[in-house]
């Protein structure tokens, strides 16, 4: 059974107001997304900026209200949960953000930051202290770090604090929204490896949101590729390099710079154009203006995400 499932999830912004916002165009950030995540699995969600991947992550966490669609967590429909039930859900789904600095309160010591979720869910003081030390050790920090402020840490260490906070309540699922994008190359591997270890150790599931295909390839079991509010392809990581079928997935793969001078110049195969405005998605297949294999049908009819092989879905007319 899947741990998390989204069915036809939609999130539109703007376009509905009568007054000041009334003239705005409707932004279709997430426009009919269905996906699932099994227990113990890491699902990578990749796409370029503005494709709606972060919005989708926030929807699944119930940090945003969906315009339409349903979200199921552990078999229960959580789409409309409020109050106590939603609060209880929070301890089971956590999030790690990209910017490790701004997601920590600069005026709180690390110990207090880590204690807060524990206190929120009623753990008494003595046990909280013990748990904080445990958490610090889990993410590779020292006990004395509890007495320091976030600004005294480097970016990589701050991301460790974020991870510790996310782990505090022993969640089932962590949404990692670009967790290593702002980190230096040498530190990135430390954090990726830590995430991998923690997953094995605590049986976690991750939704790993990233624009970096190489990191996703390293950490995820399956990959969902998003373009302009829609999932265009879902497949296993093992199949990503050889079996990716959607022209957009292939374009993304081709555009990843590989640190090997003998691989030839990746920029020669670059697709043209930039991601279009999500307020005005193109008719038909949303990728058609940039697609190297575009045909007439693509301009009029939007392809649906369909199974092409077990565990492999593609939304393209011609695969």
């Amino acid at each position, binding site marked *: 059974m899947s741990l998390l499932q989204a069915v036809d999830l939609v999130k539109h912004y703007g376009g509905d107001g009568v007054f000041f916002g009334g003239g705005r165009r409707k932004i279709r950030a997430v426009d009919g997304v269905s996906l699932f995540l099994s227990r113990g699995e890491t699902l990578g969600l990749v796409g*370029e*900026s503005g494709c709606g991947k972060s919005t989708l992550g926030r929807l699944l966490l119930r940090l945003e209200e969906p315009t339409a669609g349903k979200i199921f967590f552990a078999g229960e429909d959580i789409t409309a949960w409020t109050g106590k039930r939603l609060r209880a859900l929070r301890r089971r789904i956590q999030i790690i953000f990209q910017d490790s600095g701004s997601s920590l309160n600069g005026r709180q010591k690390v110990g207090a930051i880590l204690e807060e979720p524990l206190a929120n869910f009623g753990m008494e003081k003595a046990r909280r202290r013990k748990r904080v030390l445990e958490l610090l050790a889990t993410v590779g920090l020292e006990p004395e770090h509890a007495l320091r402020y976030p600004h005294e840490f*480097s970016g*990589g*260490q701050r991301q460790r604090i974020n991870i510790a906070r996310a782990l505090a309540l022993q969640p089932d699922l962590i949404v990692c929204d670009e967790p290593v994008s702002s980190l*230096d*190359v*040498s*530190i*990135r*591997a*430390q954090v*990726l*490896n830590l995430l991998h270890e923690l997953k094995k150790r605590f049986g976690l599931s991750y939704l790993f949101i990233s*624009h*970096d*295909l*190489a*990191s996703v*390839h*390293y950490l995820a079991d399956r990959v969902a590729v998003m373009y302009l509010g829609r999932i265009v392809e879902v497949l296993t990581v093992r199949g*990503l*390099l050889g079996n990716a079928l959607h022209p957009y997935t292939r*374009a*993304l*793969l*081709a*555009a*990843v*710079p*590989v*640190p*090997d*001078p*003998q*691989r*030839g*110049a*990746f*920029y*020669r*195969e*670059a*697709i*043209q154009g*930039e*991601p279009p405005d999500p307020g005005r998605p193109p008719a038909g297949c949303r990728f058609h203006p940039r697609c190297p294999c575009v045909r007439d049908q693509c301009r009029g009819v939007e392809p649906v995400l369909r199974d092409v092989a077990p565990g492999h879905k593609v939304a393209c007319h011609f695969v």
Partner: protein
Amino acid sequence: MPGDTILQVCNLTTQFTGPGGVVKAVDGVTFHVKAGQTLGVVGESGCGKSVMCLSLIGLIDPPGRIAGGEVWLDGKELLRLSPGELRRVRGREIALVFQDPMSSLNPVLTVGTQLTETIVSHVRVSRAKARRAALRLLAGVGLPDPERLMRRYPFQLSGGMRQRVMIAMALSLRPKVLIADEPTTALDVTVQAQILGEMKRLQKELGTALILVTHDLGVIAAMADTVAVMYAGSIVEYGPCTEVFTHPGHPYTKALLRAVPRLGADDGLVPIPGQPPNLLNLPDCCAFLPRCPLSGEECRGNRPRLHVCGPEHRVACHRSIGELQPYGEDLYEPAAGRRFG
């Protein structure tokens, strides 16, 4: 002429003095760039690569100062020029593109005004002629509908378009050397690929030498002819791109290559332990020492200089040096640079 050394940097040192002491952001950097070729400078944040770029064209403000070294561009020593002379060299002979195009463009002027302005302020041409040149430039960097674009303001453009405008502006006066500091870091991968392709094409067309600064080893691998790996303000390895990637000499380069996730490789990542060092009052031993798996007694001595470990390949590591010949001792003599003039 392609293949001739166009830019020679000798022992460049830039320091920032603060209440806590001296930060040697650039600490004795020596390299050269040949006409029409690309030097890739790779390093992590804080390794001094951006400060090095700014130092090359004398854009260091107090409390920073260029404490020593020489920058020879086509027979001129840039660091000894008067502010007026330097102004004429900047843009015209050596130009710079930054990571964030929004903060380098003027938000209240149209793209057209800014481009035309750049040309008119350096070359004696009429505005009409400069305008025509600007239109050609915009088309040259792959921007559609240049006429319309000229009337637009920076905020109306996407990040990729802004960076294309910056590149058009930087190349408007056909500089001999273009310095690009993380030009595509803020962009999506597909747009990054387009822009790097454009840069490569323009470079070929104009014969510009390119100094490409980035933290992305993949970008370096595809773009650079020569690579300089920077760590804590110094170049620790320098050599032909293929050579550095296939036979890295410095433990830092080796570790860096194993720490990047790459598509198609299933072997695990080996992180580099520890943190990049604080450049404040850095001790005079090898800066990589605390993180180095190979460190030994000799590493606690003086900081290693670049040594020759292959044709054109240099490495600064006590453990790899052995019997290697020191590199570039002659370049440290002030008079030596003149032979590039």
